[in-house]
């Protein structure tokens, strides 16, 4: 060792490392550096645990506003907003009957920003329900559920159910009259299989309705046990389920080869507009291969990444844009209108009318004839039908196009007329003339369970759909008719339940006509 080669100054090195530590922390966290090139943009995405659910490149068709209308992102954004605001509300919420109501009052009156955050939470939840329904409608009418996206459609249905479950469980938490009675009705709908088991006299041995209600409430009435169960479902089990399903849903979009697009998408898009980042045109030899695991290729194979742009930044501008738009909508609604909080729940004075959240009012309208058919039977049939659609419609025509398939928009237009007309007609008849029980007071319940507006409408829609399948020689045509009819029925019944039903579930032209107690 020569004197010139002084041993490194340990302290100086220590100081240098200390000085460089912040930079090193940043560099080790974001390895790829500035996303400036195609390569760094790609690593930006697959190097990030939150972003890697996206595909690295995205087809230009996907970015057209008319392809998705941003509804999926809007649903996700609304969920994120409810998640954040919901966690904030948990700082103050106490899940025990009267304390719950008092803590809602605290949130409303004295918690800093509490009222605004609660309003946002409520409105974002509503936006989420609307967006998830519209998103499903979009996916259906663009025939995006078809191969290879059948399974993701099923995941989407699961997400719809969990979303409604989240809204429903959140409805009880304020513990006011509105909450208490809506949940009481909901719990008794869960019990409504008894309508059938009672009628055939087997409730004593086989009572699925009673078990459902007991599981939901933890008791025979809505009380502290029910509140803590709903709280658990609302803040933990359902959000976890939703998060997991969302992960699968997004990941499957990538694995299923991006969003569905028409086979002639490239031709219809034309050359990219000037001033955008260059579109990737160099056809690679291999893509997304299951390298060295098994033989064969993933579903995306044979679809080269032609006419794609990097997700970073093109997709992210779109996603962020929709996110901020959703934020804007929720903020505006929250500023305009306070979330309701009525009187403290009073088990001895029923709220009249006791209305569930608006998206269940269509069901509540059907429930007013037969609790089982309206509340469980028809919804189960609808869910089953929705789940089967991608496995029954194995056609190719019109994938990725609005109203794609035989019949197209004219068929949908006719179905809208039929759906609205038949629902309005049946409702008009039952509102004007009553139903079987009014005519034959001693009629067996089983007959009403079997024949009521819910089953009649379902039958009309189903027969119409079968006729369409026969006429167009196409399952897709039948599915479009059926879906449109159910959508219209949902719309009409929800509007009637929301605006035209008053105390004792009597029909009124406007709330101004309601008798005052």
């Amino acid at each position, binding site marked *: 060792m020569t004197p010139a080669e002084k041993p490194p100054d340990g302290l100086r090195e220590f100081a240098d490392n200390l000085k460089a530590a912040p930079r090193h922390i940043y560099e080790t966290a974001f390895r790829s550096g500035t996303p400036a090139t195609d390569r760094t943009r790609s690593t930006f995405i697959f190097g990030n645990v939150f972003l890697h659910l996206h595909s690295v490149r995205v087809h230009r068709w996907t970015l057209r*506003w008319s392809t998705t209308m941003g509804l999926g992102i809007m649903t996700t954004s609304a969920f994120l907003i409810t998640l954040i605001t919901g966690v904030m509300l948990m700082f103050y919420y106490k899940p025990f009957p009267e304390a719950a109501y008092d803590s809602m009052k*605290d949130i409303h009156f*004295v918690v800093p920003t509490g009222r605004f955050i609660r309003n946002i939470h409520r409105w974002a939840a509503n936006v989420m329900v609307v967006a998830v329904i519209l998103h499903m409608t979009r996916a259906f009418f663009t025939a995006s559920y078809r191969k290879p996206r059948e399974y993701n459609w099923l995941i989407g249905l699961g997400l719809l159910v969990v979303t409604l479950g989240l809204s429903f469980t959140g409805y009880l938490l304020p513990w006011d*009259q509105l909450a208490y009675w809506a949940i009481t009705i909901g719990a008794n709908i869960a019990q409504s299989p008894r309508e059938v088991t009672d009628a055939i006299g087997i409730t004593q041995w086989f009572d699925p309705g009673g078990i459902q209600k007991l599981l939901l409430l933890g008791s025979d009435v809505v009380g502290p046990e029910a509140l803590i169960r709903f709280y658990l479902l609302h803040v933990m089990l359902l959000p976890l389920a939703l998060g997991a399903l969302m992960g699968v849903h997004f990941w499957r979009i990538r694995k299923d080869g991006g969003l569905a697009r028409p086979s002639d998408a490239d031709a219809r898009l034309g050359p990219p507009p000037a001033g*955008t980042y260059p579109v990737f045109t160099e056809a690679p030899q291999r893509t997304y291969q299951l390298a060295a695991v098994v033989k064969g290729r993933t579903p995306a194979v044979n679809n080269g990444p032609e006419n794609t742009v990097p997700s970073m930044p093109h997709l992210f501008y779109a996603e962020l844009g929709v996110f901020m738009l959703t934020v*804007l909508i929720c903020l505006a609604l*929250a*500023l305009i209108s306070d979330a309701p909080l009525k009187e403290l729940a009073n088990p001895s004075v029923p709220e009249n009318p006791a209305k569930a959240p608006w998206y269940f009012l269509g069901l509540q309208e059907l429930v007013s004839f037969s609790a089982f058919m309206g509340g469980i039977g028809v919804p189960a049939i609808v869910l089953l039908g929705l789940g089967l659609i991608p496995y029954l419609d194995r056609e190719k025509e019109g994938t990725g196009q609005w109203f794609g398939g035989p019949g197209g928009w004219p068929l949908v237009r006719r179905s809208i007329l039929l759906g609205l007309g038949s629902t309005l007609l049946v409702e008009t008849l039952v509102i004007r003339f009553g139903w079987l029980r009014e005519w034959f007071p001693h009629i067996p319940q089983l007959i009403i369970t079997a024949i009521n507006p819910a089953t009649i409408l379902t039958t009309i829609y189903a027969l119409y759909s079968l006729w369409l399948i026969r006429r167009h020689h196409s399952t897709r045509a039948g599915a479009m008719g059926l879906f449109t009819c159910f959508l219209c029925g949902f719309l009409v019944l929800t509007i009637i339940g929301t605006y035209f039903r008053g105390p004792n579930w009597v029909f009124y032209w406007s709330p101004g006509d309601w008798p005052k*107690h």
Partner: protein
Amino acid sequence: MSKNKYLLLLSSLGALALLIAAAVNEHFMKEWRRIQNVAVSDEGPVEVRLRQVINPGLKVTDRCVSCHVTMGAGEGSVRGAKVLAPHKAVSHDPAEYGCTVCHGGQGLATDKAESHGDVHFWPEPMLPSHYSYAGCGTCHAPLRVPQRESYQRAVSAFERLDCYACHRVEGRGGTIRPDGGGMEGPDLSKAGLAGYDREWYPKHVEKMQKEPLKAWKMSFSAVNDEDRQLLDVFLSTCVGASRLVEAKAMFNTAGCLGCHKVSGVGGDSGPDLSRAGYKDPGLADFSHVSGPATLANWQAEHLRSPLSIVLGSQMPSLGLSDRDIEQLVLYTLSLRRRDLPISYVPKDRMRALRFGEREFSTDGATVYGTFCAGCHGLAGSGLRSAGLASFPSIANPDLLERVSDEFLKNTIQHGRPGRRMPAWGDMASGLRPEEILSVIDYLRSLSGVKQKPDRTPPRWVKADSASGRALFASTCAGCHGAQGEGGEAPALNNQVLLASATDTYLIETIGRGRRGTVMQGFLDPSPARRTLAGAEIESVVAFIRTWEKKQP
């Protein structure tokens, strides 16, 4: 693809603007902030923050003091806005007891309309300031309150004997000693609540005799027994809330407990009033009520004309004056008793709850006023109103002359089964034996009539009931019903009546009638209907007796 960037830009700017609007709203627009911003105390401007009074025992969290800052603990000197007027001196410090316990309203709220409870979903709006004494009823039950006339006599006795010269009651009267030694006599505002020396009179006399001062000799002189009783009535009702006591005296005059229960005492015909002051105005029917949709107004309009507010109401219209109605409304609103932790139960309520003391004075006039006057009238002259069976005139001298006290006692005790008169002595919510006796004494004093001595045995009529049947059908059945089941007139087949009525009583009543009622004497010649001879009356009585169930 720049349209996505525009979307992002515009949405973000919009969100930013709304967030700023929300922040401004939160920080500058709140009413309590604007009040506290201009408020100053002796130490300078007050700290701007939410304030509240918490009393865990009473389950009170009242944020009223965020605007009414002066009513919070140690903030008495704050001034600067109209709502900062200090609370008037009361024995319950609002900083300790909170506000909503007495005034109602929504303590958790911090906005004016919502905290005053003027929102349709808050079941307990603030009591109107006009009726704020009703708030005492949350915890207190004023005891020993007599009926109105007795109360007014007691009040005027205190005034007439010039007790105000030395004593102060609710801010009135009293003399400051010239030498600065305080008041001449103690303040008696709460004598009834805190208790007072029962031996006050001998002590006053003794002091007067010993006292060399001229003032004593001038201002105090002997008080007779009757006045001393009146003064005792006055003192025992001094609870610091004379308006509430006055209202209760009215309640004890209108006979409300004849049909309604309060704290488990009273009749069954009407709704229980124990918590009438908590009735949710949001659940009351205002469709036939003129004026504001407040509980007070509903009660007032209902008292004025029950049938026009509540369809099919059996409550008679009592012909009350506006002042009567106001007092009854005040008392009804004060029926808002809350369950309290034991350490907060006041003495008066404890006496009623645990020691069996009545919530009304138990002299005959008050018991009559509280239980009987609603149906039988304040003067005992009965009540006839269209559509309802009439109530008999029970202070009628003809009646009282012919019946024994035993008859009256049986009637009050066992009632008239099947009719509207309840069995006051037999039901748990009814009257105690000594109260029944005091009512009988009161009835006798009301008419000034004692029973005429009657030396006949209770049952002596031996006439033929068959001829009585025909006579009854032609002469009596029109009013008393074919089977004596009653109609416009009282029922005669009633077992309690038949058991306690003597033959002489029945014969006298049929023969001589009851003056001042529809029942005219059948011995008197009348152009309107047939007269009955003595023997005929006896046969009618024999027929009436056939309804009596034989004692086993």
